């Protein structure tokens, strides 16, 4: 099969229903989606539209109630929890709204975390970390801890962590949600670097129209249905 034409992400007939006690809450309904490799897609929609859930399914953090989720040719449903964890470690980078850095670790140590799951030696790990911090422009803050960094700097450390294992797919959930205009701009510039410079596939969920307009395509979700 020609890898160039194979989508990075393919969803077919995907539904997700949450069960709270005896109540069933449908969140996604019969979603079909195809994302080409190296593209930068944004998903927008009101609260409860299911966009975060969509992201969780694509990144292997959750499983659909129905339908197929294929990422880089892998049918995620065939993987058990342990295999999914391993798969995420090698193929997905995460960027969260609240950064989710570990406050007691330095920037470099935070970035290093995903590499601990790989067979790289300590010297190799250090090289990758340095390179990732270079990309996000924070080499001078290597030994600082999150409480000493601004919101924008923390998010950039998180981006470095997301790319340090060189994953194909980078997932961003409201990446600029907690940042001021300037910091948000820096983060979005970096996303462009990831997209054009490093050829990563970027999938972003956002409320922020400034963020959305940087993407190649914007999808809208409402009440679990892709428009």
């Amino acid at each position, binding site marked *: 099969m020609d890898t160039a034409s194979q989508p990075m992400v393919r969803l077919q007939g995907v539904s997700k229903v949450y069960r709270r006690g005896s109540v069933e809450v449908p969140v996604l309904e019969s979603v079909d989606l195809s994302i080409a490799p190296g593209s930068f897609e944004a998903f927008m929609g009101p609260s409860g539209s299911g966009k975060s859930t969509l992201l*969780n399914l694509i*990144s292997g*953090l*959750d499983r659909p109630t129905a339908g197929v989720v294929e990422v880089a040719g892998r049918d995620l449903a065939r993987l058990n*929890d*342990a295999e999914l*964890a*391993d*798969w*995420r*470690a*090698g193929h997905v980078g*995460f960027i*969260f709204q*609240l950064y*989710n*850095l*570990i*406050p*007691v*670790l330095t920037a470099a*140590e935070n970035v290093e*975390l*995903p590499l*601990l*799951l790989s067979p790289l030696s300590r010297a190799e790990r250090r090289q990758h970390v340095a390179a990732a911090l270079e990309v996000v422009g924070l080499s001078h803050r290597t030994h600082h801890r999150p409480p000493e960094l601004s919101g924008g700097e923390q998010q950039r450390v998180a981006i470095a*962590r997301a790319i340090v294992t060189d994953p194909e797919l980078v997932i961003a959930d409201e990446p600029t949600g907690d940042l001021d205009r300037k910091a948000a701009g820096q983060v979005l510039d970096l996303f462009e670097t990831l997209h054009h410079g490093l050829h990563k596939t970027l999938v972003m969920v956002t409320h922020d129209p400034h963020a959305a307009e940087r993407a190649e395509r914007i999808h809208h979700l409402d009440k679990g249905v892709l428009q």
Partner: protein
Amino acid sequence: MVPLYYNTRSLWARRLSTSLTVLGLGLVVFVFAAVLMLARGIEAALSAGGDPGNVVLLRDGADSELGSFVERDALRVLATGPEVATSVEGEPLAAGEVVVLVALPREGGHVMNTTARGISAQSFAARPTVRLVSGRMPRPGTNEVALGESLVGSTPGAFVGGELRFAQQVWPVVGVLTAEGGAFESELWTDGRRLGSAFGRDGPSSAILRLRSPSQVDAFIRRVETDPRFTLKAQAESSYWAKQATSLATFIRVLGLFVSFVFSVGAILGAMITMYAQVASRLAELGMLRAVGFRRRSVLASVMAESALLGLAGGVLGALAASAMRWVDIRTLNFQTFAEVSFGFTPTPGILLAALLFGMGMGLLGGLLPALRAARLSILDALRA
């Protein structure tokens, strides 16, 4: 997998909780280790008084020299036995001894029940572990007294050149004895006939016989006990002293281990509370680790490692504090004999190791449930926290 420095720094970040927990764990380990050291100290002190090649004669039915008496004739007969060693001059190494309690005054107006041993000619020869450390031996036929080392300074006149007063007589102190930490270091030794007459005793309380070889002890004991002429009981000297410690050592061990066990429950609960709080405050981090690809078991291991660190810290603290007890001497009443004995805390590598393991074990037990909870977290719930 998850690096250990994450755990150490996270514990440090919540210093107050961490230190309180470590303090609690440390105290429990301290009590545990101190009790074991004390019990060992008692046994060491009391059994160091016993030479395996010596036999102690008591009246049948008596458990202690203090309540016993031995007929002089019986002693004379037994001393001629072939198993009994002889001195260079050809005298059998057998000595009848008068053992009584003397109430000596001590600070605070209370009295100290001290064991006084009235010795005879061969007493020293029969006990090679007892040595003069200063002064000289008491002369037979006089009231001269040699003090066991731990008695020095414990009552007025208790030093070389001083005088003790009891039984309406004066007893000058002429020497100080050591006995490798054994019970004799809590006794005062003087001439048996003088002591006996001061206390209205006209015969020895007990006798000590040194045999040619320890292997002959059992046979000798059998001989004594089956001889219809005497109503005597014979024991290896080491067994005799070991038994004197039973009551006190039991009390200390039972009290101490009871207390340690109960307190350990409290300390484990404390560790559990701390670890639950640690996990609760770091839910988002733990969720992130899982999202990034760390397995559940890595998270479990990480939390367990953190609680083990807590426990180890407590163990080290407690073990250090307990080791410091080695310079403390305790003087207390041996309930069995009514005599006061002095003993110390004997630290051994085994006890210290046990203390560390005990601490770590408590930490691990405390961290188990929180670790399971952390591992069971659903990634999404954790990230939402």
